[in-house]
């Protein structure tokens, strides 16, 4: 009887463990813009993300003022109302699901290609996106890596003339590194 109880308890705690939500508050996102005039890179180490393995639900929140640029003036431009308007829109968010979660076993070491679909909100504009997220499980620790292009005009970030229109690419590349449950 005692053993049965023990087995039952172990089973319950294992189930609880496998259902636990994966979280991080220290994800890294980098964006990179390349034009003949110059290359611009910005880094942000404050990405929050939750991943619920049972449902495949995945969310992100990015504090927009945490992007650091090499040049102070670029950083000011990026934050200003002409660009990302980070005072009005201090956070960018993604809310989506992993459609092939059934093929992904986060309790076993390995590398999995997650197909993520959902809604990305930047600069107050929400768009449906579909991207792949590489999930890697190593010694039980889960990390996520993805890289995708963002067309700035899709999110209402446009600059018709002047230096920014020649020095900032119309499409920037975003690279995300997530360190879950750290």
């Amino acid at each position, binding site marked *: 009887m005692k053993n049965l109880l023990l087995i039952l308890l172990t089973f319950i705690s294992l189930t609880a463990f496998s259902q636990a939500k994966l979280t991080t508050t220290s994800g890294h996102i980098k964006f990179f813009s390349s034009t003949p005039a110059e290359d611009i890179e910005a880094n942000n180490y*404050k990405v929050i993300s*939750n991943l619920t393995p049972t449902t495949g639900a995945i969310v992100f929140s990015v504090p927009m003022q945490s992007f650091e640029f090499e040049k102070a003036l670029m950083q*000011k431009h990026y934050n200003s109302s002409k660009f990302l308007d*980070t005072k009005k829109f*201090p956070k960018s968010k993604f809310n989506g699901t992993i459609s092939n979660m059934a093929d992904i076993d986060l309790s076993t070491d390995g590398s999995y290609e997650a197909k993520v679909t959902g809604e990305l909100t930047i600069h107050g504009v929400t768009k449906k996106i579909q991207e792949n997220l590489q999930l890697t499980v190593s010694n039980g620790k889960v990390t996520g890596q993805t890289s995708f292009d963002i067309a700035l005009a899709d999110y209402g970030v446009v600059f018709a003339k002047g230096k920014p229109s020649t020095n900032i690419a119309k499409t920037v590349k975003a690279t995300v590194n997530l360190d879950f449950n750290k």
Partner: protein
Amino acid sequence: MKSKLVKIIVALVVIGLIYVGYMWFMPHRDIQSTKAFKTIGATALVNEFLTDKESANQLYLDTEGESKVLIVSGTIAAISTDQLGQQVILLKDSDEKMGVSCTFTLETNAQTSNLAQGSNIRVKGVLRSGAEYDEDLVLTENVILEKCSIEK
């Protein structure tokens, strides 16, 4: 007459170059030497955002990203390191859901070496974003303070 014109043109070019140089090499804002806007407790700051997000954003955030520099006092709930190797200290009262996440810099990291969970400290840093509980996303988001240093 001609030499005067040349002098003026040369002067204008020099001024132009100095201006471009200044824009190009404009130093990043020095948070440590910036006077703090105010001193506030971690939970009080969190609650300002939870009560009225719009007015808190209006008060603390700056249009060009040069948001308010604050001194936040609180209890250390967690100490961690981010992907760049910067120390991150969470100031949060034990009975609260959210607190203030303070990211130090590679230069100020050393100031955190003798700190332990449970002790009370004061941290100076620049506010990047406010606290939020997003019901749809089931996300609890701490206040984010960066470029931090320990305030004695």
